[in-house]
C-alpha cells in the first residue's frame, strides 16, 4: 500500500516534469519563431535591394518574378567604380555623388568634432553664465524641421555665391551635427573625474593643456562614438543637399539616388546598385562599431 502510494506520487512528479518540459519546449519554439520573424522583417527589404543590384533587368521584370538571378551580374558596380566603355551618365553621376558625399560628410564630421570637443569641455567643466540656455538651445536645434532653416540659408548662400558648392553642404551638415556632438561628448567628459585634471594642473598644466593632454585621450571612445554617429547622420542628410545643390559639382549620393525615384523608365538594376552603394558606408560602420553607435544613440537620443 505504501509502496503503491509512493509510486503514484512518483508518477505525478514525473508527469509534472514532463508537462513543465513541454511548456518550456513550446516557449522555446515560440521564442525562436518570434526571433526568426524579426530577422526576416529586418533583413528581407534590404536583402531584396542587394539582390536586385546584382540581378539582370530581364530577371527583375519577369512574371512570375524570378527571385534569384541565374548568375551574379556585377557589371553595374564595375561600371561605377572602374568606368570603361559601358559606363553611362548614370554611372558617372553615382561616382561623382559618392565622392561629394565622402568629402561633405567627412570634412563636416572632422570640423564638428574639433569645435564640439572644445564646447563640450566648456559646458562639462567650467562655470559660466548662460550655460543652461546654451545647452537648451543646442538641444532645441535638433528638434527643428530643416525646412525652417533652409529658406534663409538658401537666400544667404545664393547672395554670396555658395549655392551648389560642397562648402555650403558641409556648413549645413556641421550645423546639424555639431549640437549633437557637443551633447554626446559632454556626457563623456562628465564621466572623467576632474581629480585627474587637478593632478595635471598641480604639475603645471594649464586648463587648456589639461583638456588636450588628459581629458581628450581619456575620452577617445567618446570621440569615436560621437564622430561615427555624426558621420552617419551627415552622410544620410538629404534635404539641405537637395535644396542647395543643383549639379554634379555638389550633389551627394542621396540626391542622386532620389533622382532615380522620379525618373520614368528608370534602370532598376542601376537604381538598386546606387542605393546599395549609398547605404554601405553607414550600414557597415553601424554594424562594425555598434557599441559606439549605441552609446551615441542612448547618450544623444536626439536624432535618428
Amino acid at each position, binding site marked *: 500500500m505504501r509502496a503503491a502510494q509512493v509510486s503514484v506520487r512518483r508518477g505525478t512528479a514525473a508527469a509534472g516534469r514532463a508537462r513543465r518540459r513541454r511548456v518550456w519546449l513550446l516557449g522555446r519554439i515560440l521564442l525562436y519563431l518570434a526571433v526568426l520573424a524579426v530577422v526576416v522583417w529586418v533583413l528581407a527589404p534590404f536583402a531584396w535591394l542587394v539582390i536586385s543590384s546584382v540581378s539582370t533587368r530581364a530577371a527583375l521584370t519577369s512574371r512570375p518574378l524570378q527571385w534569384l538571378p541565374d548568375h551574379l551580374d556585377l557589371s553595374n558596380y564595375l561600371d561605377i567604380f572602374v568606368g570603361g566603355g559601358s559606363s553611362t551618365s548614370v554611372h558617372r553621376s553615382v561616382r561623382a555623388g559618392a565622392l561629394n558625399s565622402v568629402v561633405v560628410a567627412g570634412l563636416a564630421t572632422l570640423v564638428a568634432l574639433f569645435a564640439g570637443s572644445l564646447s563640450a569641455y566648456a559646458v562639462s567643466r567650467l562655470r559660466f553664465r548662460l550655460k543652461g540656455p546654451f545647452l537648451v538651445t543646442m538641444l532645441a536645434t535638433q528638434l527643428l524641421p530643416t525646412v*525652417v532653416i533652409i529658406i534663409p540659408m538658401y537666400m544667404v548662400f545664393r547672395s554670396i555665391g555658395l549655392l551648389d558648392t560642397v562648402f555650403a553642404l558641409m556648413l549645413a551638415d556641421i550645423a546639424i551635427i555639431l549640437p549633437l556632438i557637443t551633447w554626446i561628448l559632454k556626457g563623456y567628459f562628465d564621466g572623467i573625474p576632474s581629480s585627474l585634471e587637478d593632478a595635471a594642473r598641480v604639475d603645471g598644466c594649464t586648463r587648456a593643456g589639461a583638456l588636450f593632454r588628459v581629458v581628450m585621450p581619456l575620452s577617445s571612445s567618446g570621440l569615436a562614438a560621437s564622430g561615427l554617429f555624426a558621420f552617419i547622420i551627415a552622410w544620410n542628410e538629404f534635404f539641405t543637399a537637395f535644396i542647395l545643390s543643383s549639379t554634379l559639382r555638389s550633389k551627394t549620393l542621396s540626391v542622386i539616388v532620389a533622382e532615380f525615384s522620379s525618373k520614368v523608365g528608370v534602370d532598376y538594376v542601376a537604381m538598386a546598385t546606387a542605393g546599395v552603394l549609398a547605404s554601405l558606408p553607414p550600414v557597415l560602420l*553601424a554594424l562594425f562599431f555598434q557599441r559606439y553607435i549605441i552609446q551615441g544613440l542612448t547618450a544623444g537620443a536626439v536624432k535618428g
Partner: protein
Amino acid sequence: MSAPARRRRVLLRVPGWSTWLDRPAFLATLLLVPTLVLVFGVLLYPILDTLRLSLTDRVLSQPGSGAFVGLGNYLRALQDPEFRASLGRTFYFALVTVPVETTLGLLIALLLNQRFFGRGFVRGIIILPWALPYIVNGVMWKWILNANYGALNALLSQLGIIGRYHIWLGYPSTAFNFVILANIWKETPVAVILILAALQTIPGELYEAARVDGANAWRQFWAVTFPSLRPVIAVTMVVKTVWALKEFDLIYVMTGGGPANATNVATFQTYLTTFKFLKFGYGASMAFIIVLLSLVIAFFYVRLISPKEVAE
C-alpha cells in the same frame, strides 16, 4: 642656455596668457567661439530670418515684394484648407507611427533580452534600418511596392493571396499607409536600442524579489520591468513625435505628396509653397507653425531628459 631656462624665458615673455586661460569665463568663451559661430551662423540666424520673412509677403520671383504684413501669413495659413489638411495628415502620421514603433520596439527589446542562440547576431543586425539613408529607404520601399515588378506584388500573387498586381502607391487610401509602413520599418530599431539599453540596467535582484513574492512573468513585467522603463519610453515617444513632424524625405521619394495629395504632410506643403511656388514669406509662416508645434513638444522633451541639467 639650457632647455629648461629657455622654456622659462618663453613663459615669462607672455605672463598674462596662461593666467587668462585659467579664468573659467574667459576660457569658456574661447572654447565656445567655434561652436557659436557655426551653429548660430548657420542655424540660429536662419531661424530668426525665417521668422522675419514669415511676417512679409516676399515672393522670390517678384523683385518688389517683401512688404511687412504682420501676422497675415499665419492667419492665412491657419485658414488655408490645403495647409490644414496637410497638418491633419502630419498628426495622423504621428498618431500611427509613434505608438506602433514604441510598442513594437518594446516587444522586440523584451524578445532580444531573452537568452537564445544567435542573440548577438540579431542584436547586431537590428541597427541596419536605422543606419540606412532615408532616401535609400524610400527608394527601396518604392521598388518593393512597384506596381509592375514589385516584390510585394510578386510575393502575394505567388502565394495566391492576390489575383492581380496592385498599384499600392497609386491609391489615396493605401499610399499613405505604405509610407507609414516604410517609416515603421526604419524607425522601430531606435526604440528597440533605447529600450534594450534600459532593460539591461534593471538590477536582477528586483526580479528575484518579485519571484520570491510569487509573481509570475506577467506580474513581474508590470511590477518591475514596465515601471523601470517608463522614463525611456516617454523619451522615445516624445523624440519620435518630433521626428514625425519633420518627416519629408520619405514622402518626397515614395509619393511626392500624391496621389491626390493623400500623402501631402505639413513639411511637404511648406516645401511646395516655398520652393515650387516661390512664396517665401508664406512658406516661412507655415514652417514656423511647425516649429511652434515642435517647441511645445520640445518643452516636454527637455523636462523629461534632464530636469537638473536645465535648472543649472
